[in-house]
């Protein structure tokens, strides 16, 4: 195949016809071609799939080991996750501060709001923001992950996922988010 004839012509003239000794070497070029073709095929068709994970730590339900430190209401931001990927938020205690409705929920507005508020809280109280996430029954799993991801982007690890209360459900209902 890929071999040039270098024998330099045949012998001229008579003489005995001898049986030519066959070489035992096999041309492996085609086999190498095939092997590399297969390697290329397998490498190109393989998808490297390494899914990653996000850590979720739930608060310990055991009431006996009550070692929780109180968190000032002034640096607590509560996020209420409602239906249709919309949310409300307020700073401070439930019912005392009217919640702000975010009608145009998208990833950017949530992140900007959280970032802005965390700077404000840091400036006014000198401490970092504590976020309480309260998903309602109408919210989807993706909402929770989005909020957690935004907090991870900000590097805020002070957060808790807590059950929503009846008062807050009323707030969501009033604003048509539940």
């Amino acid at each position, binding site marked *: 195949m*890929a*071999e*040039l004839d*270098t024998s*330099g012509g045949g012998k001229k003239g008579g003489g005995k016809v001898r049986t030519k000794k066959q070489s035992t070497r096999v*041309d*492996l*070029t085609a*086999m*190498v071609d095939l*092997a*590399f073709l*297969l*390697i290329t095929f*397998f*490498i190109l068709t*393989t998808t490297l*799939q*390494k*899914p*990653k*994970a*996000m*850590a*979720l*730590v*739930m*608060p*310990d*339900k*055991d009431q006996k080991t009550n070692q929780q430190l109180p968190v000032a209401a002034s640096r607590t931001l509560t996020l209420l*996750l409602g239906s249709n990927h919309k949310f409300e938020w307020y700073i401070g205690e439930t019912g005392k501060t009217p919640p702000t409705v975010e009608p145009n929920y998208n*990833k*950017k507005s949530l*992140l*900007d709001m959280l*970032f802005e508020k965390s700077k404000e809280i840091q400036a006014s109280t000198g401490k970092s923001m504590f976020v309480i996430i309260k*998903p*309602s*029954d*109408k*919210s*989807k*799993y*993706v*909402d*929770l*992950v*989005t909020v*957690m*991801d935004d907090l*991870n*982007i*900000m590097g805020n690890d002070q957060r808790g996922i807590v059950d929503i209360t009846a008062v807050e459900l009323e707030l969501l209902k009033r604003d048509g988010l539940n």
Partner: protein
Amino acid sequence: MSRAKVSRKSTAIDMTAMCDVAFLLLTFFILSAKPKVADPVKAEVPAASVQLEAIPETDFAIITVGEGKAFFQIEGDDVRKGTIEAMGETYGAKFTPEQIKTFQHVDNFGVPLNVLPSFLDLPSAQQSNYKQPGIPFDTTENNELAKWVLQARKANAALHNVEIKIAIRADAQTDYPLVNTIIKSLGKQKLDKFSLITSTKVAPKLK
């Protein structure tokens, strides 16, 4: 005096070594590849830009939630064996050695325990076509899914001496109460740390 002749060299190269290398690589890639496990249910995980942990290969179990059904997957043949034996004892179900052997090769399953023996008796071709109803779960700590997790934790701790990591792989559009129910019922066995499996996306810039 005759002219010195330049001997003509053969252009043929010895391909043996190259052939060896090529097939060695081919063998390596084929053997190191892990086939993708077909999921019994469609679960499109939500995307997140910050991934804090990689998924381990061992000492790991995944709860898949999709279409409102729960599935369970344990890594490691020995842990699977330990778990199903313990489950059999807990619920007084008898599993034959063949059924246990089949279970060791089942990746992701979602059948109630009373259907499990007949599911394992099916030929493997029919198993993948079988419409799995999901593992029953509720808010109490004695539901089947919680028991599976508990026995997997026990079996893993006994066999590998490490705490098993529990991950949740839920479809993005799953209703939150469904996920919450599972998390709450596992919280009753003092399991508070989970890994949420996410896909990757680019992080938005902060202002």
